């Protein structure tokens, strides 16, 4: 794993395993810049999920607060 807050390493990207998401909406609350809920309350990433360096910590917090382990963060190429 890189050091996301340094801004010098690889870009992070978030995604949601939609078959695991049950609509707790914790990711939307923790990182509203990165996630949004649809009409049924299921969460989706905004845009293509690219995480601006300043939001790396929030992306990781979203992962750590999803009760269903549906939020994933990984380094983009």
């Amino acid at each position: 794993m890189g050091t996301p807050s340094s801004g010098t390493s690889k870009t992070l990207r978030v995604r949601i395993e939609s078959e695991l998401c049950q609509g707790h909406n914790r990711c939307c609350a923790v990182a509203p810049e990165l996630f949004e809920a649809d009409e049924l309350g299921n969460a989706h990433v905004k845009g293509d999920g690219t995480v601006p360096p300043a939001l790396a910590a929030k992306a990781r917090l979203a992962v750590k607060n999803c009760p269903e382990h549906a939020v994933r963060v990984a380094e983009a190429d």
Partner: protein
Amino acid sequence: MSAKKPVSDWATDFDHTDPVWNNDPYPIWDDLRKRCPVAHSERFEDGAFFPSRFADVRDIAYDTEHFSSRRVIVREKKFDPVMPSPPITSDPPEHRPARMPLLPAFNPKAIEKLTPGTRALCNRLIDAFIAEGSCDAATDYAQHIPTRVIANMLGVDEEDGDRYRRWIKLALEEGIHDNAKTMQSLKEMSAYFAEELAKRGNKPGDDLISFMRDQRVDGQPLAPEKVIGTLRLLMIAGIDTTWSAIGASLWHLAKNPQDAARLVANPSLMDTAVEELLRAYAPVTMAREVVKDVTINGCPMKPGAMVLLSFPAANRDPEVFPDANKVLLDRQENRHAAFGLGIHRCVGSNLARMELRVAIEEWLKRIPVFRLEDPSGVTWSEGTVRGPRALRVVF
């Protein structure tokens, strides 16, 4: 209440309605997790299990093949599921179509709209007792917040909370020991909602009763008993649960003034504090009925047996939550299960979170310093939903 024989061993004879369990279940669960992580009891018809580890609770919540939701309360005598409350009592494949229509009414945007009204409500409640210098935080404050919010959403009289709470107490507490009381509650609620539906006729409306009436599945209206079943669920699930979470949180802050002071000094701490209070004092224990032979953590279970699904116990498992018995208002990693896991995730979780947050915020703005009047005078509800029911505080 009838005299019950005292519990000899929580591992083999547990009783989730015992006063010792109700008053302070956490040491019991800690002990069980170590020496018997799937406890058993013959006090309930066909036997009941009590898994206390997070992993076991999670596995059962995800396993709709072996565990059915047709019975979600462990009672002394099994209660025939003659009046289901979909979707909480539904299994796949009926579960999803019963749940989908409800979801838009409880999504984050819909709940955000209710926030200003809830703040105003909290302040009106505080206005009524603040000059006294004391109140019962459970009955003068916490209980009215979810009751009035859900009454307004349903489009029923918000002043009739005593009646709604009586139905819930009959169904969820007294009904554990006496099925006639459960039946009485279900019948009275059904008659009440039938009358509300009749009052509305076909008139359009933006309340949840009109909304459920107008639902169509494959172009067909829902059967009246399904509409009424879901309306009963919304009322039952919307009141005691959040009342308990608000009450337990205020109980914690009354006992731990340093935590109240931290929240007053740093309101942004509420983001994590609300989740931590939900983790530590999760009010709701659901249940499942075993429908196929299955083994959980080495413990064989036979069809017909009931299993308590204790999200509160799961949330105190030190294998998942370091310092599980400490309330850490700034806990960063918090995958708690207060609202359940899997397909039955509480439909009202966004609403409950909003109500809990607003209730604490508005309280602390007006009453930053308070304490329990008499710690031994605090009483707790029993069984399915745990929270303080008498909570005198002075300020």
